[in-house]
């Protein structure tokens, strides 16, 4: 991963946290995602500190957990790379920015047991994006052919 800062890839990406999960929707690809474990912390830091450097994000998240910092930072760095591959985060236009104050402060609370960040990807609705608003379409984006004509 490069050394530039990261931001949530708006406006292509929208997201909401509910019941211990972050659900992220990529409007451009038609994929959606569920983040769990330390993924919630990573997402919260990226969201609250647009432009933060991946190294700083990893260090901030590591301070929240009762686990060796190098282990957490390695997991977080790999997770950020995955988020970037899925285009859920993007390079910040303004380069590297500071961590938000609450992002720093969050590391000062009681450390929790570390649950590695996870990203579950759902691709089952891609067709709605690739072919919509015509829902009943075939793979070429056209409505169903008449079988007799299609076979002619």
């Amino acid at each position, binding site marked *: 991963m490069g050394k530039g800062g990261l931001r949530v890839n708006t406006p292509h990406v*929208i997201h909401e946290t509910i019941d211990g999960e972050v659900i992220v929707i990529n409007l451009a690809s038609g994929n959606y995602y569920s983040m769990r474990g330390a993924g919630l912390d990573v997402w919260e830091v990226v969201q609250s500190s647009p432009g933060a450097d991946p190294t700083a994000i990893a260090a901030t998240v590591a301070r929240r957990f009762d686990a060796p910092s190098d282990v957490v930072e390695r997991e977080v760095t790999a997770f950020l790379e995955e988020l970037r591959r899925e285009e859920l985060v993007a390079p910040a236009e303004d380069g590297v920015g500071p961590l938000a104050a609450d992002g720093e402060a969050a590391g000062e609370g009681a450390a929790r047991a570390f649950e590695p960040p996870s990203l579950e990807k759902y691709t089952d609705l891609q067709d709605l994006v690739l072919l919509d608003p015509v829902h009943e379409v075939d793979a070429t984006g056209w409505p169903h*052919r008449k079988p007799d004509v299609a076979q002619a």
Partner: protein
Amino acid sequence: MTAASPVVSAEPGFGRLEPLAASFDDAVRAATGVEERDFRLAGAVVRLRSPNAAMLGRLCRAFAHLALAEPAPQPALVVNLWDAASGAAPPPLPHTTGEEPPGAFFYCSNDELRAAFRLGTSGDPRLLAIYPDAPTPALSVLEHGSRQGWYWVADAGRIPYWEQSTPLLYLLDWWLRERDMQLLHAAAVGTPAGGALLVGKGGSGKSTVALSVLGATADGAGSELLYASDDYVGVSAAGAPEVHSLYSSGKLMQDHVGRLPFLGKALANADRLAFEKAVVYVHEHWPAKVTAGFPLRAIVLPRVTPGLGTARVHRASAAEAFRALVPSTVFQMHTRGQDSLVRARRLLEQVPSYRLELGSDLESIPHAVADLLATLEGR
């Protein structure tokens, strides 16, 4: 905004009200008059009016269960419907390159209005010979403030069946949002005391569950549950959530019709099942089984469960319900943003969610939903 489908800059006239109104007025002058029909949608009067009686009839059919017997003095929303067959100059449309697919979606939002244009195809007979269901170009516009809407199509005779069964979807989505409601991709069944939203992507069993309430039960009495929707529904966001029926239509995959044989007599397109989903206008055959809405008591996630006999219910997490409901709604409505996720999250935090496992015993499905609702209502 959305980046879901091709969205391009539109020509200036595409986003202005005056040329749109001028096109509609031209169509009215060219016709013998304007027909109007009033409906009560989500608690407010909506008037549909058109110089093309056939177009008006096609687009009103799915709303018929909400029709008002007498014209209302002051509708909250007036939607003007017309097509190019009138001979009037068409309204301003987006520039296109000629290379976009017919499903291409163009969206414009400015200080005056929201507008969406589905490119469709112009009606080239060579194309239609191969693709009989190719949609006609369609433009939907809603003025901010929700007083007027416009829906124009190139050819009212080629409005596709899915649009006839759930008409004016984008307009209603925008209008409901302005009224602090949300349009959701969900089915809904219930009683006047309360009901359930059935959520999940296409093929999850929403329609099967919703339409199953129309069947006779073993004792011949039928389910107490009423039908509100099988695909799209309005839900009020303020206060205690209420479900608002929008369409009385139901759509089923062709191969699922056999599982609900009582629908056979009611299919609106029995002669076109090779190309179309089976469509039923529920109020035309079961008028007493259709409801305008009810208080929302539960979110239910149907799931076809191979090997299971009797349907059964388990508690589900709000996150699971969110995944089942929100992405499919966002992707189908095209113009959703972060705010709609916040509204959906608030709704799902208010109302408990359940997984409904569907087995081979279809008669047990409405019983399972009714029992759940009775438990939640303390009956």
